[in-house]
């Protein structure tokens, strides 16, 4: 029988969830509000919350100064390309570790994760030199590969966890029905793991979208994504917070909308296998 939950407890839990949610969302809300203020209102003390004359001036200036669509397109290609490529490589890897484990599987998984512990700047020069050597500086191809490699351990880990939840007997049954490895992965495993794969795709798309070390250091005019677009509005000498906020809002808007519409999928995927 389900545990009875009192209305009072429910109300408290809901209020707490809303409170925490709003607290987390507040910096984003503040950025969005600031983007509609004048520069003087943006730095006003005490800060103005809603009682200001809303203006679209900052968006006009940002539109005029930067080719937003070029940055957006680069972000879409880098985040999308690296995520899809990562999943293509990670599905067979996670399959083998989940269904044909060896005694070293755990070590391999940990080793993969350990690559995430190296500070990125530690390999900046080698990677920069490789890019120069192959003519790949400021190219989307190099960044797709690098972002994919950065996120690959997470993709493999996530898929491994989801695959582990799928009973091996189902795959065995498929094999007995004559399915080869390709059919087994493509027609049996993948459809069953769709929620997990979808949330992996989404999470890694967001991670790649927000990546701001390699995308700033390896790009110039051609492959620069939205992270470079935001960085171009930060000023050491001058207060351009309202314009910076407008640029930030424009940069996070697509991912915010994507997250909003896919939240059900995202939550389902992230909690997949959590309740037995």
């Amino acid at each position, binding site marked *: 029988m389900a545990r009875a939950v009192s209305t009072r407890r429910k109300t408290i839990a809901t209020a707490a969830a809303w409170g925490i949610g709003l607290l987390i969302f507040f910096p984003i809300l503040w950025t969005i509000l600031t983007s509609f203020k004048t520069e003087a209102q943006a730095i006003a*003390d005490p800060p103005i919350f809603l009682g200001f004359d809303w203006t679209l001036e900052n968006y006009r200036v940002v539109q005029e100064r930067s080719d937003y669509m070029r940055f957006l397109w680069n972000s879409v290609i880098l985040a999308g390309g690296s995520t899809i490529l990562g999943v293509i490589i990670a599905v067979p890897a996670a399959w083998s570790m989940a269904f044909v484990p060896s005694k070293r599987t755990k070590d391999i998984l940990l080793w993969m994760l350990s690559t995430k512990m190296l500070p990125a700047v530690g390999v900046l020069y080698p990677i920069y030199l490789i*890019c120069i050597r192959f003519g790949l500086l400021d190219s989307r191809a190099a960044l797709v590969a690098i972002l994919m490699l950065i996120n690959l351990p997470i993709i493999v880990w996530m898929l491994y966890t989801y695959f582990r939840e799928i009973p091996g007997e189902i795959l065995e049954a498929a094999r007995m029905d004559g399915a080869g490895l390709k059919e087994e992965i493509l027609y049996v495993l993948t459809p069953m793991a769709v929620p997990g794969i979808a949330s992996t795709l989404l999470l890694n798309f967001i991670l790649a979208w927000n990546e701001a070390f390699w995308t700033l*250091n390896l790009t*110039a005019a051609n492959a620069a994504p939205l992270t470079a677009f935001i960085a*171009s509005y930060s*000023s050491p000498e*001058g*207060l351009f917070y309202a314009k910076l906020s407008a640029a930030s809002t424009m940069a996070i808007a697509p991912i915010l909308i994507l997250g909003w519409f896919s939240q059900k999928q995202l939550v389902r995927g992230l909690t997949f296998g959590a309740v037995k």
Partner: protein
Amino acid sequence: MSLKRVLGATTALTLCSAAAAFAQDTTITIATVNNGDMIRMQGYTDQFTEETGIGVEWVTLEENVLRQRVTTDITTKGGQFDIMTIGMYETPIWGANGWLVPLDDLSEEYDVDDILPAMRDGLSHDGTLYAAPFYGESSMIMYRTDLMEKAGMEMPDAPTWEFIREAAAAMDDDANDINGICLRGKAGWGEGGALITAMSNSFGARWFDEDWTPQFDQPEWKETLSFFTDMMNESGPAGYATNGFNENLSLFQQGKCGMWIDATVAASFVTNPEESAVADQVGFALAPNKEGVEKRGNWLWAWALGIPAGTQKADAAKQFIEWATSKDYIELVAENEGWANVPPGARTSLYETPEYQEVPFAEMTLNSIEAADPTNPTVDPVPYVGVQFVAIPEFAGIGTQVSQEFSAVYAGQQSVDEALEKAQAITQEEMEAAGY
């Protein structure tokens, strides 16, 4: 649609794009920072393209990212940029390493002798210019004339630190949320480190003696740091240990500072009525000195345009630099946006222009720039060039670490003596490792 028409359309399209490509066959890429004058310049680049047929791609970055980015690119010969926006710190070092194209063949019309001597010296190595100044700055005192009057004091043109401390205490008004003085305390060699180093010159301190021995164990440094900390604790804003240029600009524009000693370029912001609540109540004075010390606490800096040695488009890049740092460019901006908005501090002729002389901060900016001497920054002789920095490659690291120790003093986390002891040890170790 017939095959013939499709082919015809395709050919036409190809020809059109080929023609467009030919018209703009050279495109240069410029790395820059998001400062007001740079952004203004980006707005005028279409005119340059129209005049020369050379296209321009801008890569605008945050200052620290820009520094990391262009340093990586120039040391690895990455060839990502044809022009880099660099400062007075990098230029002589990179010039000495052969990483920059010498600007020794600029055209006669460009009139290289018109560049302010202090700027030219700071951007040269062995007498060769390696980057052309787009705008230059020193530091000076900006103060509230109304608050000074209320305090019953009068700001001299060239005040001493003792006067500044007294005036700061008199203008400080907690009830009305007014801090007597706002100064940079933020860690970073280009932030709080720049201010305290420039200030130390006016107390007779120096980073190194002529044998490259660090001097933080000398009484002049203790006096500088103690004076700064005491004055800021008495009359500075709360949390000044994390305030940099922008934080202080914000405080001053809201009328919360009696005085602010910082970059001369701030003058155009604080006197702009659209941004500043105190625009018509701002006065200017030279950066202070300690009574009896000839050197003043003002720095010298330029944002300049240099050409990395590996570029294939050096000629086009040079053409752009000549255009962007020319007298004509200054006139172009003056015509469209008024004299107060032209890039300051680079050319002598600007300060001889009658219209510019009427700009309230013009004279004090020039005096401040002329009062700084990068080759002879402090009282005793030094082996280095630079007023608020030491132009050696190791300085970026050492300067940042030392300023972190100083910021910890401002935040009340350690004493002046502890910080100086650590600064001495850090500097000694790094310099020994570097083979000095």
